[in-house]
């Protein structure tokens, strides 16, 4: 059993991380959007492996069903003709990207190795939806309402910012 769990974890980790490298180097931005979909689905799988069933499906609904569609719509609107991808600029940026990545990864790995994760107890795997609902309606009520207002304000602001201004164009 443990063997298959480990195998599944490494498969999902590959599904998460390999598309990231592909986004980094893909020439076509639409391909990058579909690689992002694979990566987000892999994260949803990792959530399921961690016993977060509600969060896993929320990830699929919100990210793959919502944000990714938004990104693809944005691509369709903003790329009327084939945009040149500025290969020279990207070659120039490879070294800064590698340096940033190396510093970030080293810092994070040092922090992970240097911390003792004391009291690590494994939570039992059981359905979480009902308990998350109780939390959202009791001790997380204020963050819940603030998040809903944030979403409303975000959507209204998005419509307002992106609308076409007739008098200017």
């Amino acid at each position: 059993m443990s063997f298959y769990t480990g195998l599944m974890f490494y498969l999902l980790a590959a599904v998460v991380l390999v598309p990231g490298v592909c986004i980094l180097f893909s020439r076509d931005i639409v391909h990058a959007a579909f690689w992002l979909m694979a990566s987000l689905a892999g994260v949803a799988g990792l959530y399921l492996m961690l016993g977060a069933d509600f969060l896993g499906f929320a990830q699929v609904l919100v990210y793959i069903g919502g944000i990714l569609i938004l990104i693809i719509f944005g691509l369709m609107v903003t790329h009327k003709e084939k945009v040149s991808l500025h290969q020279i600029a990207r070659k120039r940026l490879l070294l800064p990207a590698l340096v940033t990545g190396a510093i970030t990864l080293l810092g994070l790995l040092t922090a992970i190795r240097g911390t003792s994760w004391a009291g690590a107890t494994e939570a039992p795997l059981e359905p979480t939806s009902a308990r998350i609902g109780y939390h959202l309606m009791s001790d997380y009520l204020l963050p819940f309402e603030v998040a809903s207002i944030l979403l409303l304000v975000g959507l209204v602001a998005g419509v307002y910012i992106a609308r076409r201004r007739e008098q200017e164009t």
Partner: protein
Amino acid sequence: MFEIGLTHYLVVSAAMFTLGMMIIVMRRNAIAVLMGIEFLLNAAALNFVAFSRYVTGDLHGQLAGLFVIAVAAAEATIILAIILNIYSHMDSVNVDEADLLKQ
């Protein structure tokens, strides 16, 4: 090696965060930069959920992950609206060309 623990998830999350940072630095298309930001947010949420299972053993980490997803949805909407505006002003979504404030 096949016994999966907290550290495995943290390392995957760290690698994901690194990839997001590299995408933000290297890609010049504004929408690709948005993809990098989604990577960063997902890495953070994955950390929260892993801690929820392996350290605290309750649901607070998962709730934090849920709020990360909600904030990411609002953020993606605003960023795409801004990108559409930049595109209608300068006919390009290259982040290097959007430097009107610098001039």
